[in-house]
């Protein structure tokens, strides 16, 4: 229907390939990558409007009709995710210009950065599970290289574990694809949805559903498969940690939402309200407990990723339009706020030269803009009313109470409180208190680093104050994805 929707995949791919030739000149790399990151934002904004007007846009690659060829599907959810991805990518890229070392830059940092975007966008747009696997691998291979880029001892040690765990996860993904292929005889998602609905074999299909949940849960850092995340995300420089924290786990969550609304919705009492909600509860609680116990800026934020992933999955697990809309709103909010927080941690590290919050203090006097940006992002993360965090947690918890899921809703409320405590712990140690900085650190200016963060903090405020139109939009998305026949009919054209 429209060839445009391949642009979020092909455009960064071409740019990444071109950048390989300029690896020696950091100036040329910065100009090319900067301009194309901004172009990406434009392209994906246009696609989001297109998806909003036409509901579902599909592209059959090579003119092979739906179940036989690979298709790309751009519905509202995918368009939204692609749009946020490109905004975050641009932000982190401009932040990287100011922070990343020449040595890292020379060894193909920017090409792999764009290949990572190729994988993420591809995973959002594809309509075929084997193709989803391939794009996962594109994304993961780029992330393996980026996470070890620089080659410090810490990075080598932790990225080896990251690579092994993800290879095992990918092997399970192949196994799950093999099983579902043997049961249904297809790998196209719309066709799968149709066949799983009419095959009427709940036993084996539920087993496969749980297998997919384990696979995507390992990518998305859900209980009990989250242990790799805090250490791996600690190693790479701040710009990358921010991009990973904002994007990579959310690809897993997106895949869970896609599979469990489109294909595996036959037995929601066991899969959604049983397994997913339980996993979400433990993820939220254990993630935030880890965060409360830490005294390191980046590590606290890494543990918070885990607990917030739990909220999104909880929204899916409750499985009403209100809850799923809340989960989508939460993903949007979380991606902006978490990236902003990681970048602010990076700016603080640039000033103080450490990430240990006990070694810092009194930044409020020399860095008022940084302090208040952090304050806004932190209370937004904890869910204080005028900001985005409140309006995304509120529908999820409200839907939890409406559906009688008392335990999980109580856990969600408690986790909000603990999030606030750990955020205020950072604020108290780093920004308040006696000034522990040297003269040179006091006079340091980080304005060039704060500019890329500003739009993200602004988005957090806008998402809070313009809650009504945005919530209407996410409710629209939720209703669209909770009615799989929309997707199936658009793809298979019946």
């Amino acid at each position: 229907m429209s060839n445009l929707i391949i642009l979020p995949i092909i455009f960064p791919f071409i740019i990444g390939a071109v950048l390989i030739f300029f690896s020696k000149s950091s100036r040329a790399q910065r100009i090319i990558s900067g301009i194309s990151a901004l172009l990406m934002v434009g392209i994906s904004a246009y696609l989001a409007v297109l998806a909003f007007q036409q509901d579902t846009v599909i592209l059959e690659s090579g003119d092979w009709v739906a179940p036989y060829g690979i298709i790309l599907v751009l519905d509202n959810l995918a368009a939204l995710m692609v749009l946020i991805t490109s905004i975050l990518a641009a932000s982190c890229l401009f932040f990287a210009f100011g922070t990343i070392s020449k040595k890292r830059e020379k060894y193909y940092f920017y090409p792999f950065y764009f290949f990572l975007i190729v994988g993420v966008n591809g995973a959002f747009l594809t309509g075929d599970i084997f193709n989803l696997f391939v794009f996962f691998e594109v994304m993961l291979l780029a992330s393996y290289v980026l996470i070890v880029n620089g080659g410090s001892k810490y990075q080598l040690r932790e990225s080896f574990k990251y690579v092994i765990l993800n290879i095992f996860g990918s092997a399970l993904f192949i196994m799950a694809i093999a099983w579902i292929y043997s049961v249904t005889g297809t790998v196209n998602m719309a066709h799968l949805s149709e066949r799983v609905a009419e095959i009427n074999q709940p036993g084996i299909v539920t087993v496969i559903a749980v297998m997919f949940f384990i696979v995507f849960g390992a990518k998305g850092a859900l209980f009990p498969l989250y242990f790799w995340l805090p250490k791996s995300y600690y190693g790479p420089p701040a710009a990358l940690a921010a991009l990973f924290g904002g994007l990579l786990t959310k690809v897993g969550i997106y895949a869970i939402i896609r599979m469990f609304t489109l294909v595996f919705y036959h037995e929601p009492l066991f899969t959604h309200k049983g397994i997913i909600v339980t996993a979400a509860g433990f993820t939220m609680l254990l993630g935030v407990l880890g965060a409360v116990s830490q005294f390191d800026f980046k590590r606290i934020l890494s543990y918070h990723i885990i607990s917030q992933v739990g909220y999104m999955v909880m929204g899916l697990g409750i499985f009403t339009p209100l809850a799923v809309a809340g989960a989508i709103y939460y993903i949007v909010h979380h991606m902006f706020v978490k990236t902003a927080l990681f970048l602010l941690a990076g700016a603080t590290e640039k000033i103080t030269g450490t990430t240990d919050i006990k070694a810092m203090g009194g930044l409020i006097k020399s860095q008022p803009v940084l302090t208040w940006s952090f304050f806004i992002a932190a209370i937004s993360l904890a869910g204080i009313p005028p900001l985005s965090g409140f309006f995304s947690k509120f529908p999820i918890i409200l839907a939890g109470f409406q559906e009688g899921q008392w335990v999980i809703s109580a856990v969600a409320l408690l986790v909000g409180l603990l999030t606030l405590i750990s955020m205020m712990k950072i604020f108290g140690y780093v920004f308040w208190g006696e000034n522990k900085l040297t003269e040179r650190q006091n006079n340091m200016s980080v304005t060039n680093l704060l500019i890329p963060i500003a739009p993200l903090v602004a988005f957090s405020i806008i998402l809070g104050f313009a809650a009504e139109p945005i919530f209407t939009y996410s409710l629209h998305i939720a209703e669209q994805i909770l009615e799989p026949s929309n997707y199936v009919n658009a793809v298979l054209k019946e």
Partner: protein
Amino acid sequence: MEILIIIVAGIMIGASVYLMLSKSLIRIIIGTGILSHGILLMLLTMGGLKRGGIPVLDDSVQQYSDPLPQAMLLTVIVITFALTAYMLVIAIRVYRELGTDNVEELKGVPREDD
């Protein structure tokens, strides 16, 4: 035939899990290699192992074996090949920089180096 191959694949995956839980880096990498073999065997078997011609178009052949799992298999083979090559390089770097191939010793205080 399928049952036999599934048992073989199960043994391979079991062996790979055993190897991946061991302490030496190189044994872990061998484990991932065997794991991918087991998974690929499963993928092939799940498409069905019925008798048929090779999937190359030929007028005399009445029935072909399923071509789709074979295509998926080829993709997965090259991906796992790339991953194995990358992991071996990482293992060499880990050995050179940290001076050990024992995963028990790959822990400690963060950031003591840079």
